[in-house]
């Protein structure tokens, strides 16, 4: 009996194996060629003095040692952190506020939700075109309304807050959607029971909504954190790192070193530092998601 069974099983397993690779193959091919290989390559490049065409030789950790003493790099780290401070928490709070406003609506709900979400699906260059026009120092309608003459993207003080403001306008709809989903998951009988017990609106908000929405809040905070570390497009289009490098963020610094200074190896080292930071934050995100699932 046993030999027969083994013989019957072996071809079947081999066949199953072939089918599985037929299914996984196409994706895996592109994945390895355009994600895994470049990821290994960027780590290797960071140990060389390559130019942007990839020509260079191994120099060990010299790039990293230079990076540690590079004032421009540290400035870009600080600018990124400043941008994160200006966006992550405000963007989460505004998203929560909008979600609270939207969920209580009935007939107007879809229209209001669309209005808050629409900017999110626009290309970044449209968002920046709109921003440059509305916030124009001379003819912009914002300066007209406030009778001011702020040159948002040419003034080192205003540049980063300006980029942050634009980013929040653009992306808050995403956070709002996640909060709406979270708010809808809170069982309605909790509110009814507490109303019977005499809790007022504020109490219900503080003692039911806030604690029960916290898992979503923490998820949004971490997603925002990962996203804003990668800030590049808006800066590239609004300020190009200026004025006086005041918006030179990490990814923009990498771009400049690679494609303008022709220092591929050095830029790769910047990329590796960014990847390391993002992986740490992402690990935090997975922990949060797993905790959500197990509940």
């Amino acid at each position, binding site marked *: 009996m046993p030999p027969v069974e083994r013989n019957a099983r072996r071809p079947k397993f081999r066949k*199953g*194996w072939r*089918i*599985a*690779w037929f*299914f*996984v193959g196409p*994706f895996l091919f*592109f994945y390895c060629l*355009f*994600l*895994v290989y470049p*990821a290994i390559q*960027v780590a290797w490049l960071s140990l060389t003095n390559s130019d942007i*065409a*990839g020509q260079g030789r191994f120099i060990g950790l010299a790039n990293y040692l230079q990076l540690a003493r590079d004032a421009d790099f540290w400035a870009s780290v600080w600018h990124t952190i400043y941008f994160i401070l200006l966006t992550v928490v405000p963007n989460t709070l505004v998203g929560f506020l*909008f979600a609270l*406003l*939207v969920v*209580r*609506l009935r007939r*107007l709900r*879809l229209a*209001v939700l*669309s*209005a*808050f*979400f*629409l900017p999110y*699906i*626009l*290309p*970044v*260059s*449209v968002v920046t*075109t*709109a921003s440059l*026009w*509305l916030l*124009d120092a001379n003819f912009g309608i914002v300066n*007209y309304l406030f009778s001011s003459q702020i040159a948002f993207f040419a003034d080192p003080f205003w540049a980063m807050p300006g980029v942050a403001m634009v980013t929040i*306008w653009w992306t808050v709809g995403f956070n709002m*959607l*996640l909060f709406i989903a*979270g708010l809808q998951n809170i069982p309605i009988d909790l509110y009814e029971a507490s109303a019977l017990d005499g809790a007022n609106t504020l109490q219900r908000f503080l003692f039911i909504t806030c604690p029960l929405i916290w898992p*979503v809040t923490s*998820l949004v905070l971490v997603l925002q954190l990962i996203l804003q570390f990668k800030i590049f*497009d808006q800066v*590239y289009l609004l300020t190009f790192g200026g004025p006086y490098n005041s918006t030179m963020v990490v*990814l923009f610094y*990498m*771009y400049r070193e690679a*494609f303008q200074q022709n220092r591929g190896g050095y*830029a*790769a080292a910047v990329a*590796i530092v*960014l*990847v390391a930071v*993002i992986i740490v934050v992402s690990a935090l995100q997975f922990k949060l*998601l797993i905790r959500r699932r197990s509940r």
Partner: protein
Amino acid sequence: MTRQRVSILGLICTILTVFMALAWIFPIYWIGSTAFKSETDTILVPPKLIPWPIDFEAFAYVIQNSPIFRWYFNTVLVSVSVSFFSILFSLMCAYALSRLEFNGKRLIYAGLLVGFMLPFGALAIPLFMQMNSMNLVNSYLGVILPQIAAPLSVIVFKQFFDDVPRDFRDAALIDGANDIQILFGIYLPMNWSITWAMSIITFIGTWNNFLWPLIITNSTQMLTIPVGMTQVQSAWGIAFAKTSAIAVLASIPTAAAYLIFQKRVTQGVMAAAGLK
């Protein structure tokens, strides 16, 4: 008495909400209305809220002074091909990861989770070098190929396939169906809505992608609209009606996709964030 007070408060709240919503889409209205003004009307003080008389001069200028139709063609070609192949390959990969037994399955899934974390921007340099050595710089394939393997879609589809009872596959196997038939005849139709949702957000995401087309293209003829528009805009200088007009043209397809498939976009965005 209290009921009435609550409803008055509610009304005030609703009015404030609507006001905020209007303020939030005002920039979009403003770009749209500026596009239909003459250049001199755009810089009037006080600003003209309604574009009257309607002026199509800015659009005419855009059509004459930029290869806008070529860019439309490029962007449609890139977005449609990326969405189609990305979704097709992701569905197949997710099906295998969810339903088939084979060596290396866990390793692949773990690899996907790690790849999901890697920021595209950080890979841009080696990817550019690789494209350079493959002679794909400034070509459609160069723009399209690196955008196809999106780990996120696989992770989302796998979650949905995991929820389908295994009996469906077992019963179909007994009836003599093979896995290709099972995926496209049973699993795909059962998960149409999420497949649509992921397709649409992939399409929107590819259409809007800025960094990669910026790096990999270097001739005006090969640009996508979001990148191309920024180049002509800086050449046109201070010309608000014209820059607005090209922005309107660049965003019509994604805005339309959102407004038509609103529910699907919402579903896709939530699935992509890990909430079903």
